[in-house]
């Protein structure tokens, strides 16, 4: 596609057809993006003013689902999969002989606009291999976002994966155009990074996150003070961690996540089970991705953020990993039976939140209903709590499991399901609902 066609949109006469070349590039550069777990397009509150195409209204929309159960919400592609770095877990690392391609700015812009016009997508999620230097790469990505916003007055969702090591000014620029910025921490600890991605330095990643947080805070303060300030990454920042590429246990992973939530105000931490990639380094596990583990991490993450749990509470096992047999809330309950049964008609909110099988939404409803009448089992069932699990841990007006059952050493056995291979979908669904 030549550069002149994007001067006005939609073009008056000239028919835009994507060339064969674009199709080939799309194949390579979408394929290279398929390992990234983050997909959400939510969190932007209002649509940008003066948009000619596209809106962002609260919850993101999944426009399709792939047979791996993952939602397709954004055009998730790499600007290029050339990369000067040699991160061992990454298919795009310089020493891999994967086929390479690079999109032009106009090609990405056109794909985004055209897909958006058909209602295939909510927007663009652009990441990139690092070419020339972090600054150069970030500049090129910013250019795509800027073109979409200014030339085409595009109001849809834009997520830019910031390049660690890019200058603060470029990050600031990125935040002007993007709804969300993310900087991938990649691996859970500085030691893991050192081992598998020595060129990505932990301080650079943390610095980028800190800069973004600073800008977001600044924007909020100025807006509160009544200034008219341009938006800055209104959907906040997120990150992704690869799980299972190194032996780092869940406890450390969750501690890293907690500190990211607390210190950097991250909206989301995505966990991505390391999956076998073509041309992977021999140091990495060659088995299928540890999806159950990934699923448990999402559940635990949810408990950290919305249920008042602490990472140390959730991971009590000697090997410092989450239990794979039962969900983390149930695991905690089984390890703290002295805490139960909890009376749904009397207990405060914090205690209700700890009952296995009852989610935060149900807790809110229970608190309201009990002002009108004492809850019975039928009420809980109507609220769709996971009664099989919940039954052992609650007292209602017409139900008391008795301590005997709770003391039963075999209680856990009842909950352990036949092992089955989970897919990312389960993880994705629970990441969204978090009902554990």
């Amino acid at each position, binding site marked *: 596609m030549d550069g002149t066609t994007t001067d006005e949109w939609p073009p008056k006469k000239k028919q835009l057809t994507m060339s064969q070349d674009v199709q080939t590039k799309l194949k390579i550069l*979408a394929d290279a993006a398929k390992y990234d777990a983050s997909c959400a397009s939510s969190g932007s509150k209002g649509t940008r003013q003066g948009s000619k195409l596209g809106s962002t209204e609260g919850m993101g929309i*999944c426009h399709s689902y792939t047979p791996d159960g993952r939602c397709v919400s954004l055009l998730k592609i790499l600007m290029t999969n050339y990369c000067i770095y040699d991160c061992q877990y990454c298919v795009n690392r310089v020493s891999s002989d994967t086929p390479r391609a690079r999109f032009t700015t106009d090609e990405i812009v056109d794909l985004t606009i055209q897909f958006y016009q058909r209602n295939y997508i909510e927007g663009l999620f652009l990441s990139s291999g690092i070419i020339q230097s972090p600054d150069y790469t970030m500049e090129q990505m910013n250019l795509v976002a800027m073109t979409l916003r200014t030339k085409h007055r595009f109001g849809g969702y834009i997520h830019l994966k910031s390049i660690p090591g890019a200058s603060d000014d470029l990050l600031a620029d990125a935040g002007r155009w993007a709804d969300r910025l993310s900087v991938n921490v990649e691996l859970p600890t500085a030691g893991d990074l050192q081992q598998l991605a020595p060129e990505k330095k932990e301080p650079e990643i943390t610095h980028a996150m800190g800069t973004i947080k600073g800008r977001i805070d600044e924007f909020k303060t100025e807006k509160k003070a009544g200034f008219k300030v341009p938006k800055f990454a209104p959907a906040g920042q997120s990150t992704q961690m690869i799980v299972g590429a190194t032996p780092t246990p869940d406890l450390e992973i969750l501690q890293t996540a907690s500190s990211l939530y607390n210190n950097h105000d991250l909206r989301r931490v995505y966990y991505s089970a390391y999956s076998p990639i073509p041309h992977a380094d021999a140091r990495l596990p060659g088995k299928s991705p540890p999806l159950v583990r990934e699923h448990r991490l999402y559940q635990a993450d949810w408990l950290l953020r919305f249920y008042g749990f602490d990472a140390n509470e959730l991971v009590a096992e000697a090997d410092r990993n989450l239990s794979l047999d039962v969900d983390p809330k149930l695991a905690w309950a089984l390890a703290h039976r002295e805490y139960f049964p909890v009376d749904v008609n009397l207990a405060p909110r914090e205690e209700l939140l700890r009952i296995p099988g009852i989610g935060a939404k149900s807790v809110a409803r229970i608190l309201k209903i009990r002002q009108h009448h004492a809850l019975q089992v039928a009420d809980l069932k109507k609220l769709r709590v996971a009664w099989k699990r919940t039954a052992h841990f609650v007292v209602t007006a017409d139900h008391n499991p008795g301590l005997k059952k709770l003391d039963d050493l075999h209680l856990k056995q009842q909950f352990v399901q036949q092992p089955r291979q989970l897919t990312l979908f389960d993880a994705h669904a629970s990441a969204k609902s978090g009902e554990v």
Partner: protein
Amino acid sequence: MQFVKASTFEEWRTVCRGLLARHVPPSGVVFGDTDRSPSLFDATDDSEALPPPADSKSPVVFRIPKSFLQAAERIACHTAPDRWERLYRTLWRMTHGEPRLLEVTTDDDVHRLVMMEKAVRRDAHKMKAFVRFRKVESPEGEHFVAWHRPEFRIVRLTAPFFARRFPSMCWTILTPSESVHWDLQQLNYGPGAAASEAPQGDELEDLWKTYYGSIFNPARIKLKMMTQEMPTRHWPTLPETDIIPDLLADAPRRVAEMIARQEGFATSAADFLPQTLTFDALRAAAAGCKGCDLHEHATQTVFGEGPVDSGLMLIGEQPGDQEDLVGRPFVGPAGKILDEALAKVGISRDRIYVTNSVKHFKYNLSGKRRLHSNPDVREVTACKPWVEAEIELVQPQVIVCLGATAARQIIGPEFRVTKHRAVPQKTRHCENTIGTWHPSAILRQPSQTRRNEMLLELASDLRLAAQLTGFGE
């Protein structure tokens, strides 16, 4: 008992106002959709038959929560026959002694309404997600048309969303029971349409399928949950669902390939490292290295040499023709240049540990001549464990990387000799790492003046390195 017709939210609302004002209890009224066949009670459907307002002098003012009316608007789109009477009964109860009824989400009426609202919300959400426009070119310009089959009558509910999203596009959404058209100014509603009235394809669909097929990871298949989120009733209007059978059929092969190709870079020098870290052990082990293909054509491994307590380490790129034959680093023409530079600084070679990034000679045959060829990144990466082991053994205070290959291997991939030369940097290998010219680069330089300049620069960088190491004190 009276019968009232309600087919839209507005109708229901008007009717209910009257009913409430006249204190008609829920048991005294039957609701029906307009499309229901006339019933026995139809005859009573005129306002005359409604009881007169109880006390017109003191009209009752009902406070209905806004949230209830918003929910009712959605529930009105549902097709369940009991929706109108549930809504009215709930309204009645809220205005007759149970003002906070909506909080009791497990009450039968409230629960049923909540479920209906949820179903409508979901259907509306799916419409926002699964409407697929197809572009039609006409003399008046572009027009985007979609055919969609929702479960309920939600076109009016969702049309404003599409108007906000696609304000500058002319679009039409057709459904079996209603349609809506946006003309860049306002929404116009019309009758339903058959799928055959919509355009049958779009030029973008192939590209979209390409994307869909590529973004899918064949290593993690889960179909059941996919159909739960993407109900099969919508599949016929989603172009990408065409290729699902192919994607599934091809998945095992793609996974097998992913795993098989994982071996592609399985070997590196790491597999040949000795148990103990001594110079002799390293050197002996490196002699048998098959970490990459380079060992096949080279004569021998050219390992590093020099005092391991040196404190100063020089790393070049790769042995050349003469080094390959002799088995020692920097003995050819480039070695002469290096010696010349060292002489200017006044340090002798035997005080320094000298080695290369890659230990085997790589060349192309041109007739009988072996022409040096640059190592590629995979070879540099494969060989890196040797240099790392040497650094660990020598523990140098200063490393000098001769040329870009060594500098990128040790300092970082962004290193450019022209830009970053002569500046000591802290790396994870060493406190002071300096990148500078490779002697061969000086050799290849056609201009004599520039050659002299570069040689001086190399010497000055070596002098700095010697000072930092504490040489000459």
